[in-house]
């Protein structure tokens, strides 16, 4: 194998260089993931579910990103990439190291969440929310306050031996739009774009923990459409928590087609049983980042009230 990496206790052998991952110098185990380039089918003949992007059969998922590449994700063990002509390599890696690996993790029954994660006072905190609601920007702001981010891509959760929910770091970077980088006064000149010609950049994290930490809280980042300046926290009740969290499991909508409906319910109920979920209504305005972070840090030191 040309390149060896390690992520979430998993060894990855890759035919292509993946500078976004940490190199590994250990011999890979038998349970490793193999990433190769090669021919892939245009569709899966025995697919039981298809849409313009995904085709799913018993053991394989075909992910097709137009103008970029096809990814054949097989049995939690192997991903074959077929880049399309003129695809840029940043794009090919972006969809490999995001959705393709996340789907492979699902095949391995690993719970991946669409969240940015932080360590605050030794405990894990997740920020969830719809795409574009500022999860990564929040993580970068907190890093500037001295807290340690755990990434915003391929963050995974599992249950520890003592029954606690553990957060595992994702990829050692945050993905930030140029607007956010500017607001945070971070220089984007040296950063690689997520995709060539896209003004969203990979901001590397110099320090990221390899050790999982117990999950303490989950915050859903949102705004009050009736009062855009509102800044308040509301604890979600168990049913709301279940819904909010379930929606933020990676590929949540595809899990039923992967035979993982029961798994999704079990994942989500285990997490919300142990973890308070808060809605954080705040102005989604980059000029308001400082007071937003201040309010959040103050809330984190408080005892969670009952829903």
């Amino acid at each position, binding site marked *: 194998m040309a390149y060896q990496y390690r992520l979430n206790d998993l060894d990855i052998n890759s035919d292509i260089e993946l500078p976004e991952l940490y190199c590994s110098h250990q011999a890979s185990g038998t349970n490793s993931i193999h990433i190769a380039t090669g021919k892939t089918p245009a569709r899966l003949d025995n697919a039981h579910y298809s849409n313009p992007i995904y085709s799913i059969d018993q053991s394989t998922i075909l992910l097709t990103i137009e103008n970029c590449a096809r990814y054949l994700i097989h049995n939690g063990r192997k991903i074959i990439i077929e880049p399309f002509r003129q695809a840029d390599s940043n794009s090919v890696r972006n969809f490999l190291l995001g959705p393709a690996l996340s789907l492979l993790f699902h095949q391995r029954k690993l719970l991946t969440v669409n969240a940015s994660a932080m360590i605050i006072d030794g405990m894990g905190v997740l920020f969830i929310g719809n795409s574009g609601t500022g999860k990564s920007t929040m993580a970068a702001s907190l890093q500037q306050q001295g807290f340690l981010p755990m990434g915003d891509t391929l963050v995974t959760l599992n249950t520890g031996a003592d029954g606690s929910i553990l957060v595992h770091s994702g990829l050692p970077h945050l993905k930030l739009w140029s607007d956010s980088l500017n607001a945070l006064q971070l220089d984007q000149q040296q950063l690689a774009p997520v995709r060539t010609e*896209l*003004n969203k950049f990979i901001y590397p994290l110099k320090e990221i923990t390899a050790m999982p930490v117990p999950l303490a809280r989950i915050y859903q980042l949102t705004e009050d459409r009736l009062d855009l300046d509102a800044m308040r926290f509301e604890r979600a009740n168990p049913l709301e928590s279940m819904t909010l969290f379930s929606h933020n499991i990676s590929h949540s909508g595809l899990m039923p087609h992967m035979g993982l409906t029961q798994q999704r319910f079990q994942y989500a109920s285990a997490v919300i049983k142990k973890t308070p979920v808060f809605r954080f209504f705040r102005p989604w305005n980059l000029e308001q980042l400082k007071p937003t972070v201040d309010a959040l840090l103050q809330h984190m030191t408080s005892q969670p009230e009952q829903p």
Partner: protein
Amino acid sequence: MKRIFWLASYPKSGNTWLRLFLNNLLHDNEEPVDINDMPLSNTIASAREPLDQMISLESGELFAHEIDQLRPAMYEAWSNNSTCKLYCKCHDAYTWNSNGEPLLSSRATRGALYLVRNPLDVVVSYAHHNNCNIDKAIRQMANTHHGLANSHTGQYKQLRQRLLSWSGHVHSWQNAVRIPVHTMRYEDMQLDTINTFTKATRFLQLDNNQADIEQALEACRFDKLREQEVRSKRFRETPAGAKAFFRKGLVGSWRESLTDNQVCSIIDTHGSVMYLLGYLDSQGNPVY
């Protein structure tokens, strides 16, 4: 199955009024519908979240032209997964994606109610809506590449919408021959209200009687909507930075706001379409 009726318009052309009318028409309570809690027709064609759910990807990491390739399938899924007719707001011009498919899939579309308003009035309202000056709004409405949610440095909550120029928007919908389109002028909604809304109701395949229609119109009279907006402090669809959503809503209020040069500029750019829609007389003078 074709279940979607698009409630389509260039912005500030009466779309919200139409949707509030439909909400009042189709709900059972005596009380007018809360402007911030419309039970029906709340979906907009450019909503990002449903697309993200369908594709299980961060759509912000796709380029607008790539998203356009996925949008027809999204509307087909909306249509196929629904058991009833859907009334969906839409500000997009009627355009095709690079696969040669209409963005608003014909396989999902039952019809489109296209609202149009005198551009002399639109420009004043659009400037207020975007918190910009009138000259900028005039330039935007003349720009054939104008769109909404079109940033390249951040991510909008909505998907990119190509508006084209104001004239281009009108042309695009008049040329949408693959789907039934019923065009409705804002001026007729104001000046021949019951007749205009009754025709719209019939086009949308609703069988409500005249009394229902009159009651729904009463519930969404402009002064009542503005009163609700003041009482609730904010209408949820008001863009950040805009002071109020329901401002004047009058026909011909441009006469108090536009300079002669601004009027000439708009007529120079959009005169031929304005004439076809009855906004200019045969001498080229504004009708309203």
